[in-house]
């Protein structure tokens, strides 16, 4: 199970890598992580774009105005010594062209031009060559020697020297080199990949309340309609919680109306049914002709059956209602069954059927008294109903460490193998069954057993030849609270 789950997870991750869209469409975490990374990607892209396309439109492109003024100042000291001046400027050129590891590159280097009162004194070798001075202290652009150039000029008024620096306009000039760019890109990519897992964890953590909400809802069975109560009420979850709660309260109201309606209907049926029974019975005590008493017998049978259906409907409803709001209690199952059999002995006597109970020891179970009572009454009542005169019914109760086994065997016709599942459906009757049953008894029993975490099985009784009903109930039931 665990390995399956892991397999599922790894295959999901693999699928997500190969075909990410599927994950974005199927997972909220995927969507948010994707959103985050798109944002980070755009941010990085914008920074790179800014870096790539940035124009050297301030003096720092030329290493700062102070450096330039220093050069101009020292040049003005040597203004009357052309040889020295030239060698000094060559020295500066050399410094400028070799101060980075990638060596001299036309794209990056700064070119010097020195004029004295309009007369060219020095120009750095190579392109763009001598650059005409521009306005003092302001960067301008100029086309020359097949390229675009930024130009900055400073003038020393006392000597009339003007120093003009130029630098090629183009891409990547702010970065050390293309190789540097590649390294940066690689670094950013690694960061992005390393961020993926923590970001996934963070988003998962952030979305945990959503998952918890789902788990809370999925743990409920269909009859648990009480309000959702979340430990922490996050602002984003609140609308969902409110919507679910309002839906639940509408469900509760409609369930209550439905229960009330059926309970009232069954209740209102009881009085007229009693009247029918009593009058028919009173009539049957009189001396009547054969055909009339035959008709009366039919009337009595049908009204008894109608009574039984009304009773069972009420039992089923009461079980449903008590399953939700009755606290579990320790029930002495031996006493419960004994008392039910004592009650049913009137019915058994009327059928001429013998009841037998066998119990080893006191058998206790933690459960719902009413449901267990209705289960025992229905299963034993069925056995009585289907056993013919002078037949036997064996009821036994035994237990081991964890389970209780409750068995009812009868001498009736039994239930064919192929029908042993469908008899648990409500209002299901097998063909040829002319008994006065409601068709609800087995359904009621089964729902009571299932509510206690147990199971029921029908087979044939090896001792009596009729039906054997076996019920297993765990001693400590895991009933929904």
């Amino acid at each position, binding site marked *: 199970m665990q390995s399956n789950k892991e397999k599922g997870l790894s295959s999901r991750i693999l699928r997500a890598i190969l075909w990410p869209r599927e994950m974005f469409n199927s997972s909220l975490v995927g969507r948010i992580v994707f959103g985050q990374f798109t944002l980070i990607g755009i941010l990085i892209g914008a920074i790179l774009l800014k870096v790539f396309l940035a124009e050297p439109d301030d003096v720092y492109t030329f290493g700062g105005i102070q450096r330039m003024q220093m050069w101009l100042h020292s040049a003005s000291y040597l203004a009357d010594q052309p040889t020295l001046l030239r060698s000094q400027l060559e020295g500066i050129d050399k410094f400028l062209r070799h101060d980075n590891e990638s060596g001299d590159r036309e794209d990056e280097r700064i070119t010097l031009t020195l004029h004295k009162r309009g007369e060219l004194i020095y120009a750095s070798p190579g392109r763009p060559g001598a650059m005409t001075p521009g306005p003092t202290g302001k960067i301008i652009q100029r086309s020359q020697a097949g390229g675009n150039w930024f130009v900055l000029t400073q003038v020393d008024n006392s000597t009339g020297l003007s120093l003009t620096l130029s630098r090629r306009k183009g891409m990547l000039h702010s970065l050390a080199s293309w190789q540097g760019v590649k390294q940066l890109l690689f670094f950013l990519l690694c960061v992005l990949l390393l961020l993926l897992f923590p970001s996934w964890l963070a988003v998962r953590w952030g979305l945990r309340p959503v998952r918890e909400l789902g788990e809370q809802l999925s743990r409920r069975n269909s009859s648990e309609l009480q309000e959702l109560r979340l430990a922490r009420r996050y602002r984003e979850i609140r609308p969902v919680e409110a919507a679910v709660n309002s839906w639940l309260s509408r469900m509760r109201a409609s369930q209550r109306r439905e229960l009330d309606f059926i309970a009232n209907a069954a209740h209102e049926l009881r*009085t007229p049914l009693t009247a029918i029974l009593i*009058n028919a019975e009173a009539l049957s005590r009189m001396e009547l002709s054969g055909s009339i008493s035959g008709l009366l017998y039919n009337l009595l049978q049908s009204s008894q059956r109608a009574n039984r259906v009304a*009773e069972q409907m009420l039992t089923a409803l009461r079980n449903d209602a008590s399953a939700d709001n009755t606290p579990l209690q320790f029930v002495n199952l031996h006493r419960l069954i004994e008392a039910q*059999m*004592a009650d049913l002995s009137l019915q058994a006597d009327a059928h*001429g059927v*013998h009841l*037998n*109970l066998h*119990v080893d020891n006191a058998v206790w179970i933690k459960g719902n008294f009413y449901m267990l009572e209705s289960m025992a009454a229905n299963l034993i009542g069925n056995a009585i109903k289907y056993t013919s005169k002078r037949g036997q019914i064996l009821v036994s109760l035994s237990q081991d460490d964890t389970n209780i086994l409750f068995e009812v065997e009868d001498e009736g016709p039994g239930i064919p193998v192929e029908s042993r599942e469908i008899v648990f459906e409500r209002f299901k009757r097998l063909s040829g069954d002319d008994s006065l049953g409601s068709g609800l008894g087995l359904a009621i029993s089964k729902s009571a057993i299932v509510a206690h975490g147990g199971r029921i099985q029908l087979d044939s009784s090896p001792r009596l030849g009729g039906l054997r009903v076996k019920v297993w109930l765990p001693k400590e039931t895991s009933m929904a609270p």
Partner: protein
Amino acid sequence: MRILLIEDDLNIGNGILQALPNGGLQVAWVRTLAHADAALAKDEFVSIVLDLGLPDGDGLQWLVFQREKGMHLPVLVLSARDSLNQRLLGLEYGADDYLIKPFALSELLARLHAMLRRSTGFKTGVLVCRGLSVNPSSFSASMNGVSLSLSRTEFQLLCALLYRVGRVVTRSQLEDLALVGSESNSLDMHMSNLRKKLGSTYIRTVRGVGYVIDETLRDAIE
């Protein structure tokens, strides 16, 4: 023997009115609590059959009120309510027995007779059934006029069964009544002794469940 029937439903009332005289009982039928009060003031009754949902009030409250006034007649409650709480309330509030609608006429008659016999037994101090007569206060019992010698436990068991003639008394109930702290098989021993003294057919066994004294002897089927 007149019984006061308090029931507002016309058809049920009429049915009972028609049927009960056949069972040897006279019936006075009223449909409201006010009429019931009037009938009780005017006539003598041996018991009351009380429906709970009446047009001028709740039958249970009326019963509590009557009991406080000292009305001691045995009361059989008829109810269309069925929850166990209300069953208990019915007995707590002074009802002697209850029947839940719908019920069969034969069941009503059986309950009425059993209730009347109990109340007669309490009144005269002697329980009588099928030739057996038992006086709980003097610890004496006789079968067809022949005095029986019973142990204290046997006597208690017999009384428990006689108080509930026609109904199975479970083994647990008998053990609680007469054999506190004893082993379960000692109940079998005491019952076997009791049956020897009463005759083997007097007490019927429902195996593993309990014992019953039937009102009339059943055909032995076993």
